[in-house]
């Protein structure tokens, strides 16, 4: 059993308030979370049921023109420009009068992510901490996603599929750590989709993956999948070859290369495949791989719940395919959240950081706030879980 009330709320209040700052990739997020102080949390395993209230959840995304990705330097500049304004807005929206009195803990993303954007946010976090005399907690970005997903969906002990622009992992909890069962060996699934979107020169607004999903919906030849490499390696995945393969198909399609028999009819030279079909086939192929390793992880840990987190987790087609697999297994359930909580945000950092804070984990020296590009999910000791 775990005592989540190890640290009492500030000023004898009956609730905790955490400010969360996220900026590991192209999204800058600031959120405020409130947890009531409840006797049931003193001796239980209820870290998935904190009765959390999201007082504010503000996000600003750095969007690049079609055909371009986001670079660390420009993303860091975006975060620097907006960080303080977003913090101010989040505090106002949450109705906090005096942050120095009201906030128990400031949570920030310590990694993994792009170094420069992470650093530009931690500078603001450190300054706030010293100005208000409020402690800091550094949060692993992946753990933020997992804890937010558990709190929203109330999934007690799910197999977690974490799919985003920078990460692709199948995770299950065991013995105080979130253990990685399988992951990508090269690029992340979101990166694969984003880069294909760049090849197609489709807009990055609201997100490249969302636009691919919309194109895939209107694919005219859903019955005839374009064959792509299917690269599941044990519990791991590889996606760079799939990207290279679909990229070259798209380029042949744009050039009108009639020699390509996959795209054009051998005899008549008529086009058989559209851009929408390519999007559809890419999604089906990639998601089938994800479903396969997730199902294997479920069998391994004897679980019937899946929690999908991360930006790609908003994809409705992925949720559908996962739901089908779970239905075929006995009484399985899929848990997913909408884009407020799936896509990187500040409240998820506040949620995970507040759990850590309630167990007594705070930054004691600023040397612990140094951000890190590489920070694996299983490095974190999950004190708040049984």
């Amino acid at each position, binding site marked *: 059993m775990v005592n989540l009330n190890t640290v009492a709320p500030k000023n004898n209040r009956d609730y905790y308030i955490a400010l969360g700052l996220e900026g590991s990739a192209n999204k800058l997020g600031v959120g405020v979370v409130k947890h009531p102080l409840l006797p049931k949390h003193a001796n239980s395993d209820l870290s998935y049921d904190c009765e959390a209230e999201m007082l504010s959840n503000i996000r600003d995304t750095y969007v690049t023109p079609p055909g371009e990705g986001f670079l660390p330097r420009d993303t860091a*500049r975006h975060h*620097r420009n907006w960080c303080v304004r977003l913090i101010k807005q989040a505090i106002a929206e949450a109705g906090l009068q005096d942050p120095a009195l009201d906030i128990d803990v400031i949570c920030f993303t310590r990694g993994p992510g792009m170094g420069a954007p992470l650093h530009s946010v931690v500078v603001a976090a*450190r*300054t706030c901490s010293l*100005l*208000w005399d409020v402690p800091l907690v550094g949060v692993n970005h992946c753990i933020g996603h997992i804890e937010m997903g558990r709190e929203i969906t109330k999934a007690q002990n799910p197999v977690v599929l974490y799919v985003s622009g920078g990460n692709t992992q199948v995770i299950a909890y065991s013995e105080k750590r979130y253990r990685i069962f399988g992951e990508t060996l090269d690029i992340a699934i979101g990166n694969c989709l984003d880069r294909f979107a760049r090849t197609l020169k489709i807009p990055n607004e609201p997100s490249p993956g969302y636009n691919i999903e919309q194109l895939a919906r209107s694919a005219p030849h859903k019955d005839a999948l374009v064959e792509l490499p299917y690269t599941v390696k044990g519990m791991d995945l590889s996606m760079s070859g799939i990207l290279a393969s679909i990229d070259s198909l798209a380029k042949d399609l744009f050039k009108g290369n009639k020699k390509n028999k996959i795209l054009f009819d051998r005899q008549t030279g008529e086009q058989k495949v559209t851009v929408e079909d390519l999007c559809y086939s890419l999604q089906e192929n990639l998601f089938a791989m994800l479903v396969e390793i997730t199902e294997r992880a479920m069998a391994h840990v004897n679980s019937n719940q899946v929690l999908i987190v991360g930006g790609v987790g908003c994809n409705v087609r992925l949720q559908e395919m996962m739901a089908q697999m779970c239905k075929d297994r006995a009484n399985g359930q899929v848990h997913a959240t909408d884009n407020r909580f799936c896509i990187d945000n500040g409240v998820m950092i506040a949620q995970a950081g507040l759990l850590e804070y309630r167990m007594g984990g705070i930054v004691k020296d*600023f040397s612990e706030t140094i951000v890190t590009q590489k920070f694996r999910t299983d490095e974190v000791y999950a004190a708040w879980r049984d």
Partner: protein
Amino acid sequence: MPLDHTLELKIPFETEKQASIATKVLSPDPILKPQDFQADYSSENNVMLARFRSIDDRVLRVGVSSVIDSIKTIIETMDELS
């Protein structure tokens, strides 16, 4: 190579506390290439003193401008959120 290209910045803050906060915020981060660039921060009364040493002017300029970017964030935070 000797670190013989140097620069000193003296940044006045409104209060002694602000200067000390800025020093504490900037100090922890490691320099990526310590053999090429070094930075030291200290504060005296309401002034923060930043001393930079580098192998050439180019590395010095790049290093200093990224520190100035961070200082801008610190000052904006102090102005808007305290």
